[in-house]
């Protein structure tokens, strides 16, 4: 590809060309295009090596699949949250929407005796509607995303509590399909992990390889500028929030399926874990730059941390402290890497 060639020339002029090995050079180029990925990769590597030493059962295929299975919902929501944050917005309502969708599914299946597929569709619709409400208030009324989703978080949590009356609603025992999304297996691979991989791949391709993804990035960078080129920025933002609600609903379906019941207090604090992972993955909280792969690695890092601390017989109470410290550390690394490449060499910012 000729374009790749031009890039190589530019970089080697900055001194990286002397680095040993073409592989390292390639990795460096990759990181240069996605600067936030460098720090999260380092942290993940440190986590994995540390726990591999201190917890013998950590580094195994079955434990890896367990981590994917347990965190599938977070992966999916993080992929959608990456879009929201890349536009410069935020969605605090995803935990509540996940709970509400789970409850909706349980009510439709258990009390309204709907077939499982319709119950799942109903839950996803509930999530999409919740996202549309957020999106309309933000794009049409012009309210700040933080305020809107803080309020709807409260509303949807309340709706879940009212609907379930505080109980945990069991899924009907005769419909294995409802639980399939949360605890099914296809051969040796858990179903939630497959759903998650599909969502993350689709989201990453959409963000980097489609017009829609380009406008999402553009809106976060300069909304008025994108509007002046004739793009319907309101519609793009609205779709982003609908996606976020839809992803939260899918998360809710998976979580309810895994537990075999829907509870109104599922996913409390879920949104904060997801946001932390997205930021950890290098997505700019002020918008304009996002990486779905980075967010997935962020979730993976936090998940490895939780899983590893337990396997290493360290108090689970310490997990939250580590999560917070790691997030701070990652952002610190990101900031000091800014304007430098992987080897800490200052980049020639002005291409004069």
């Amino acid at each position, binding site marked *: *590809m000729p*374009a790749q060639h*031009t*890039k190589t020339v*530019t970089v080697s002029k900055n001194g990286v060309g002397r680095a040993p090995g073409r592989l390292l050079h390639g990795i460096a180029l990759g990181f240069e295009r996605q600067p936030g990925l460098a720090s999260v990769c380092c942290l993940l590597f440190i986590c994995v090596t540390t726990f591999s030493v201190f917890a013998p059962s950590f580094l195994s295929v079955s434990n890896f699949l367990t981590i994917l299975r347990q965190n599938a919902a977070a992966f999916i929501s993080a992929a959608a949250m990456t879009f929201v944050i890349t536009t410069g917005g935020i969605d605090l309502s995803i935990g509540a929407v996940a709970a509400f969708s789970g409850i909706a599914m349980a009510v439709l299946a258990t009390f309204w005796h709907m077939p499982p597929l319709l119950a799942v569709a109903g839950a996803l619709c509930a999530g999409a509607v919740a996202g549309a409400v957020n999106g309309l208030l933000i794009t049409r009324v012009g309210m700040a995303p933080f305020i809107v989703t803080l309020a709807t978080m409260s509303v949807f949590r309340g709706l879940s509590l009212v609907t379930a009356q505080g109980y945990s609603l069991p899924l009907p025992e005769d419909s294995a399909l409802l639980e399939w999304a949360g605890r099914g297996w296809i051969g040796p691979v858990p179903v939630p992990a497959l759903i998650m991989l599909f969502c993350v791949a689709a989201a990453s*391709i959409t963000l980097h*390889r*489609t*017009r829609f993804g*380009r406008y999402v*990035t*553009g809106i*976060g*960078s*300069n909304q*008025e*500028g*994108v509007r*002046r*080129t*004739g*793009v319907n920025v309101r519609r793009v933002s609205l779709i982003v929030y609908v996606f976020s609600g839809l992803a939260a609903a899918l998360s809710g379906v998976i979580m309810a399926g895994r537990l075999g019941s829907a509870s109104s207090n599922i996913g409390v604090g879920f949104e904060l874990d997801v946001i932390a992972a997205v930021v950890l993955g290098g997505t*700019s909280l002020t918008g*304009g*730059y996002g990486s779905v792969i980075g967010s997935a690695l962020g979730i993976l890092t936090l998940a490895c941390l939780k899983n590893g601390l337990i396997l290493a017989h360290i108090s689970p109470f310490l997990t939250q402290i580590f999560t917070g410290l790691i997030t701070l550390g990652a952002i610190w690394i990101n900031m000091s890497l800014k304007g430098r490449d992987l080897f800490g060499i200052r*980049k020639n*910012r*002005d*291409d*004069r």
Partner: protein
Amino acid sequence: MTGLPPAVEMRGITRRFGAIQPLRGVNLALGRGEVLGLLGDNGAGKSTLTKILSGALAPTDGEILIDGQLCRFASPRDAQDAGVHMVYQDLSLCGSVDVAGNLFMGREPVRRVLGLPFLDTATMHSRAAEMLQGLGVVIRDTHARVEGLSGGQRQAIAIARAAAFNPGVLILDEPTAALAVMEVEAVLSLITRLRDQGVTIILITHRLQDLFHVCDRVAVIRNGVVAAERQIDETSIGELVDLIVGERFHARSAH
């Protein structure tokens, strides 16, 4: 001028915001391929006038004719469809998007893979390089993010983006403000090149010396009307300053 209708003609343009009336009947005509310098002190009505011509504001009264055709612009899109494009002073570029992405923002070429439309980045980059080269703009790498470029390069990208629409009329708002000397030269030669391609250009600037390099004519707006028009070879910086301020004024900045 020949028998052709003017590329742009504005007749009796007024605009009122409540009790304030920034435009009180502007009459202005530009021939095809003409470069007009639009001058005026802050608040004289320059930006209101250009917003009306570019469709961002509707006039309270008056007519706009493009190539002799009466036009009504309800939005910037309408004006763009009529061939009138504006490059705003803040450039409207996305810093975190690369050069090619900015040039094609809003009309990216797509390539279908399995029926799904994906960005055709290879075409974008090769055509972006051609566009920039055709306008004599030196940007080595179309993959570079715009936030890392110099002010002159950004200005060139913004102008190139507008030029890519084959505009009949191009409005440039302060394109040389806050640029280094060499960058000003590059932007002025870009303007000249566009004029040679037959684009009618309205240039707003506070750098009066630039006008003498690229303009054919200047119009001075004061108190919401065209207070004076001058052929560029029949005027001087001193006279222009007097016209802008509206009285005999011993402007130290003119000497």
